[in-house]
């Protein structure tokens, strides 16, 4: 029998104090990733700290003018179904809908998807394309980190041992965005390549071009963004290809990943820049 201690704190303060006293503890949100890894023997955490009872981690609300605050424990199903998200940031709903299956989406959380720091995480390219910020509870204090500065390597983030990702903030949702998840099949599949392109809906487009699954972390491609803002889509696609550093794995080869970035960025760009 796999054994571990189980904690179920009711507040963030309590959680950080558990984490301080148990450096080996691992946070448990939806559990769709961590429980699988435990069962496969990939990790053996001494303690699981279940944060699902902490109320401030739940909920989706409107902030500032047209921004969003999405609690870290928001499930993928909520992202798919919530009216605020669907109206203001439909690309995030679409990205969530592309993930796993109904049963997993009912459990898996956006916070888990972000904090796991998979290069192929589907919610991340849309969030990066909206300049999202991450709200982090640290030392009784709340800080904000731009999502582009959050990831350091596959599975690695700037999050310190007793810090907790509490919410994802999208300060301004006035953007049009398109996410393409390139997979072999229509469900139960992980992105071989993910591409998200966005532009402001008013004024200068100030585009974003984000690639998933083609580098150690999801990446923005500033050169491609510059080309897009000049209306040069082909050049933007080429710049995205140049920026990618994919690897070979069981899902696709590095060369194929490179090969499809161009048409995918092109398709996403047309979707966003088409009138």
């Amino acid at each position, binding site marked *: *029998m*796999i054994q571990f201690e189980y904690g179920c704190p009711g507040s963030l303060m309590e959680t950080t104090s558990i984490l301080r006293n148990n450096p080996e503890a691992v946070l448990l949100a939806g559990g769709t990733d961590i429980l699988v890894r435990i069962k496969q023997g990939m990790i053996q955490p001494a303690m699981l700290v279940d944060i699902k009872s902490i109320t401030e981690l739940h909920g989706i609300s409107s902030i500032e003018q047209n921004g969003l605050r999405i609690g870290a424990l928001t499930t993928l199903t909520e992202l798919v179904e919530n009216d605020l998200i669907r109206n203001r940031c439909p690309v995030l709903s679409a990205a969530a809908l592309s993930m796993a299956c109904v049963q997993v989406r009912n459990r898996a959380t956006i916070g888990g998807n972000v904090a796991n720091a998979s290069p192929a995480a589907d919610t991340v390219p849309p969030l990066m394309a909206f300049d999202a910020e991450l709200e982090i509870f640290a030392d009784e204090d709340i800080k904000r980190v731009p999502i582009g500065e959050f990831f350091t390597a596959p599975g690695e983030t700037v999050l310190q041992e007793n810090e907790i990702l509490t919410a994802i903030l999208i300060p301004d949702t006035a953007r049009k965005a398109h996410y393409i998840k*390139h997979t*072999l*099949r*229509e*469900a*139960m*599949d*992980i992105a071989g390549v993910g591409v998200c392109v966005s532009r402001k809906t008013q004024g200068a487009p100030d585009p974003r071009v984000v690639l998933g699954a083609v580098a150690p972390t999801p990446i923005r491609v500033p050169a491609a963004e510059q080309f897009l803002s000049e209306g040069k889509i082909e050049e933007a696609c080429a710049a995205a290809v140049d920026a990618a550093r994919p690897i070979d794995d*069981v*899902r*696709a*080869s590095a060369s*194929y990943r490179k*090969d*499809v970035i*161009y*048409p*995918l960025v*092109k*398709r996403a760009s047309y979707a966003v820049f088409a009138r």
Partner: protein
Amino acid sequence: MSDYRILNTRAPRVDAFDKVTGKAKYTDDLSMPEMLFGAILHSPQAHARIVKVDTTEAKKLPGVKAVITSEDTEGIAFGVSPARYDEQIFASERVRYVGDEIAAVAAVTPEIARQALDLIKVEFEELPSVLDAHLAMDDEAEQLHERYKNNIVQQVHWDFGDVEAAQKEADVIRTDELTSKMQDAAFLEPQSALATYDQGYLTMYSSTQAPHYIQRTLAMALSLPLHKVRVVKPAVGGGFGPKAACSSMELATCLLAMKTGKPVKITFDREQVFLHSRARHQFFHKMTTGVRKDGTICFLEHEALLDGGAYCSFGIATVYYAGSLLGGPYRLENMKYDGYRVVTNKPACGAQRGHGAVIARACFEIQLDRIAEELNMDPVELRLKNVREAGETTCNELYLSSFGMKEALEAVRDSAAWKNKRDDQPDGKGIGAACGFFVSGAGYPIYYSKTPHCTVVTKLNEVGGGVIVESGAADIGQGSDTMLAMITAEVLGIPLSDVRVMSGDSDLAVDLGAYSSRTTLMTGTAAKEAAESVKAQILEVIADKTGASIDDLDVIDGEVINSKGDLNIEELRHDFRMEHRGFRGIVKSGNLTFNEAARVAFIDKGSIVGTGKYSPPKLGGSFKGAAVGTSPAFGCSAQIAEVDVNLDTGEVTVEKITGAHDCGFAINRTQVEGQMQGSMMMGMGEALMEEIKYDECGRVINANLAEYKIPTSLDMPPLESIIIESHEPNGPFGAKEVGEGGIMPTIPAILNAIYDATGVRINELPVTPERIRTALRKAGKVNK
């Protein structure tokens, strides 16, 4: 529509309620008092000598009741073909693939059993591993088994007609190749077995397709009298072939039960399903075909190499099927075949839906399209010009007693609007057609025997009324129980709900099992015979009691009808009513009911039991290997696939598949369509996604259903299923196979459509987006 009341309808399956509500019990759902849980230690090495297995620490772990290794098995060899018993329950001297079984443990909990596995110390001496089928045949290659020189398990050399002479007649001659990958059958239910051993009687509940063969193998390997071994098949969640042979796991479960005297259960996890495999081989086909200008096929020269992994399993049959089933559905009088089946240090392959014939069929059907293109002929027309008809015999002596090939091909051509779409499609859109041909039950058992292939015992309920059908047939989800119930109800003239089917138990009757698409034709025939016997016995008594002639009597809608007028039933009814004082719903007027007649017959004769059997006639020619591919009947099918290929990314969307299958006669129309659609789904997966991937050490790197991709419901396009009924004279009510034949045209239809869409030919399965892009690049069709 037909004159039948029950047959040819869409009657709900007899197991539908239990399956849908979760009431149905699968092997792993079963539990017994004091049951122990088993676990198996698999080899982490692809090829190694076993120096030492030390189980001391494992045996000491509290909760462990038994640890067994090859030392406990007396060197027993087993397998599928008696001439190739090359498997052991546990490897004794060497392991031959990552996953080979080394030891097994029984413990009071599954966790302790797994923990004990970690305590078994195995010392290996690594051997060079052979992972490439071509290199396996080199003289310098490491030999996996002493008995298989050059690692060749079986070779076939056939030469029918006169290929040399036919070459001179051909105007166009083409050579093409196709390579596939090892597959997983991806059934939902992982294998599970539960064994009990009590007073010399061994009972095993197992997730199997073939209780009979398991029973025989257990008795042989464990030195038990056959009649003291009983194999019971609970509900099974799919098999598709890999569950047709007895496994080391099943034998280990029995050994542990015999050793501990307690019930023992072992259930595979998904990774073990992949390691055990016994699914589709990897095929390398090379075909040279010649045709005349008018499209007449002159000859086929065919070379095949099959990579079968570490053991023979069904491999002999596989390599024969790969050649023999190209004998149909076309008029092909000159056919040469050279087939080799080799062993490599990978999980062993066996039979999977369309056994041996699927990739050969794909290669040939793709080649026919290329030939049609060279002849500037419509590929459907080319096929129609060559298809055989009922009454013909193929060059390898397969007799086609019924054959709706032409009808099937014309049906899909017309339904899919082939001509319009073929001529007028934008770049990236494509349409492709293909045909298929398959046995309706293998003509011979796996071991040499003149045994009936199945028996059925149908017994009248002794208190009056319904019947119980006892059969050894294995309903593994394909619906054979429903088929048996429908045939029995039809023959007896009673409602389907009055028939109860007990099946899948070696104590009930003999049945070779659910493989080679045999059950409807064979067990269906036996069930028909058994029901007819029951009916005759009842009517004989009624004729006797009423003075009517038995020839004038029949049972229709649950009532005994005399075609020559009224039946004198006063006395019979009086007795029946007297017997049932206090019962409600006892008939007072009208015709004699079946329930009354059954009771009357019982009172007169005692138990009324009807039996039926099926033994095929002598089939096939006298050449070596002629038995494989023989069948009392042959199914055939045609499909048209429509695809949309994204030329920039290589992604393929199958937009529609139109299929037609000649099943002789549809016992249950919904089930026939279900088998057709399941075949198309499996074929589509194999065409576009499915591939077992290995690392350089021979380890499967995608041994799970997340990374071994089969289509999901979201991937499936609309499927049109057209049933062709050619009325097979050797089948019950004209029925023959639909379980496997339907997969034959799917892969080539999709590949032919991809060519139509892209203009590039891909000779390696699965046709992934990456392979399409590579082919486009080679053809200079990628601009950048």
